[in-house]
């Protein structure tokens, strides 16, 4: 793992009586995609804004690239890129004009024409901001966040409000950004997104970090069961399945069999038992536990979008 790019220690932020962030600590390492997931109001945006230096924490220390957010604001702004959850530009500013303008704010900007090309916005160079689609606006904001070639990129809910296609395109973009050696701090309320994109995930609820690890480790720690589901003609004798080591439960209903169980080689043993008992089965699939289940186990609640 790389060096620490972000260090957060004992961060607390209150708004009046409400404690938005309740004593959280974590590090982000160079080159990783670090995700912070949780429902709306969990404190994700407040955390990001304290790290960016746009909000002042009530307690705790934050270091970003060795600098103090808010205090070393201008030096830090040269080396980070920020994409806001709610972002805006003047409606009549043109795409190319915007990038050219923002490139002039930094000491060592990238060639913005290339950036537009990479993000598929070259054709929109002369279009006013207000005429862009949601996905195009989002890509423009990513271009603005990348124009100074930052070491660390903040993305606050980058796919919220995007259609599924733009959402997948955005995931590809985030992976490309990481492949260029950048560190990404991403917040999302989509468990699917966190699982798919992030190297490590902090699960947040009510201003606290409930768990922090790789998605695989978080899921493994659940010790949740895998389900093997398949279709059979008529009814089968399920005894051959329930005798397999690791299987805890077998259900059969309307020509569908569900085998619950866990452990390494579980799936293979189920399939070979089916083969040797000459049962004709089809449409076999497995249902793995996901971060959704981790959240449920940690908070006792379903994550809702």
């Amino acid at each position, binding site marked *: 793992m790389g060096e620490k790019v972000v260090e957060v220690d004992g961060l607390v932020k209150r708004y009046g009586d409400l404690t938005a962030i309740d004593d959280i600590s974590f590090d982000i390492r160079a080159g990783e995609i670090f995700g912070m997931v949780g429902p709306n109001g969990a404190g994700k945006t407040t955390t990001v804004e304290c790290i960016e230096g746009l909000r002042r924490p009530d307690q705790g220390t934050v270091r970003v690239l060795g600098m103090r957010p808010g205090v070393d604001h201008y030096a830090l702004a040269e080396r980070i890129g920020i994409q806001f959850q709610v972002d805006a530009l*003047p409606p009549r500013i043109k795409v190319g004009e915007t990038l050219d303008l923002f490139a002039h704010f930094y000491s060592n900007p990238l060639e913005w024409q290339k950036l537009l090309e990479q993000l598929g916005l070259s054709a929109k160079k002369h279009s006013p901001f207000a005429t862009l689609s949601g996905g195009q606006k989002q890509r423009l904001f990513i271009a603005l966040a990348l124009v100074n070639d930052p070491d660390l990129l903040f993305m606050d809910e980058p796919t919220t409000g995007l259609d599924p296609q733009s959402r997948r395109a955005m995931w590809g973009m985030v992976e490309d950004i990481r492949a260029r050696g950048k560190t990404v701090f991403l917040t999302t309320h989509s468990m699917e997104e966190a699982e798919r994109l992030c190297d490590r995930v902090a699960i947040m609820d009510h201003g606290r970090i409930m768990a922090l690890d790789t998605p695989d480790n978080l899921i493994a720690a659940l010790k949740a069961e895998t389900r093997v589901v398949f279709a059979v003609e008529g009814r089968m004798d399920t005894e051959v399945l329930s005798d397999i080591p690791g299987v805890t439960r077998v259900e059969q209903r309307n020509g569908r069999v569900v085998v619950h169980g866990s452990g390494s080689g579980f799936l293979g043993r189920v399939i070979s038992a089916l083969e040797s008992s000459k049962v004709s089965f089809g449409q076999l699939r497995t249902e793995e536990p996901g971060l959704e289940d981790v959240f449920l186990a940690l908070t006792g609640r379903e994550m809702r979008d």
Partner: protein
Amino acid sequence: MLQTRALGKLVVVQVKLYLREPIAVFFTLLMPVMLLVMMGFILGNEPVSELGGRGHLDVNLSGYAALVIGILGIAGVPIETATRRETGVLRRFRATPLRPLTYIASDVLGNFAMMVLGVTVVFLLGRFGYGVRFHGSLPTLALGVFLSAAAFLSVAYVLASIIPTSRAAMVVGNVLLYPMLVLSGAVVPQQVMPETVRNVARFVPLTYVVTLFGGLWSGHGLSEHLREILVLGGVLIVGVALAAWLFRWE
């Protein structure tokens, strides 16, 4: 520290954005011109005895020019800045190394250019379209225009700093603007106003712009308008100090 590279680019973009906004252009640049054309059509510029043998446009032209400065300073700039703050455009700038002072300087320079352009159009149209005779000196008149524009832009930024939302900026703009337009003599000449109204008008900064423009146009030197220069200079200094202290990105 002023960031010159960023500043130059930002001034150009600010002016372009302004010129792309038809409603803003109409109310700031075109309305005074339309007023001039309408009044020229209705009243003409024949000498009138109530105005001491001068024509309506001779008396009112400097008022129409002052309108440009009043409208942009009291309504245009505060509304635009509040809108940008409200929608998050200023926050987008805050996420970069751009300093607030650089942003303000760019906006002030851009609007300054627009004010000078608007005033110039009104004066040129009056002089060459309606034959309003110019007796003053151009450099002196230019100095008066620059001072007035600067003073009103500082007022604009004080308003932009204390008004939280675009809606509030529109309300405040209208509440301040219309009485100011009437009282200052920008639309109705001060000569025809009753004494009491003229006393109230002394507290309206635009009055000094109207008087200064009128005097400089008719051939007065700056030394004959020390009162106007002191008032507008005072507004400028106090405004800059207040705006620097009060301005916030968010």
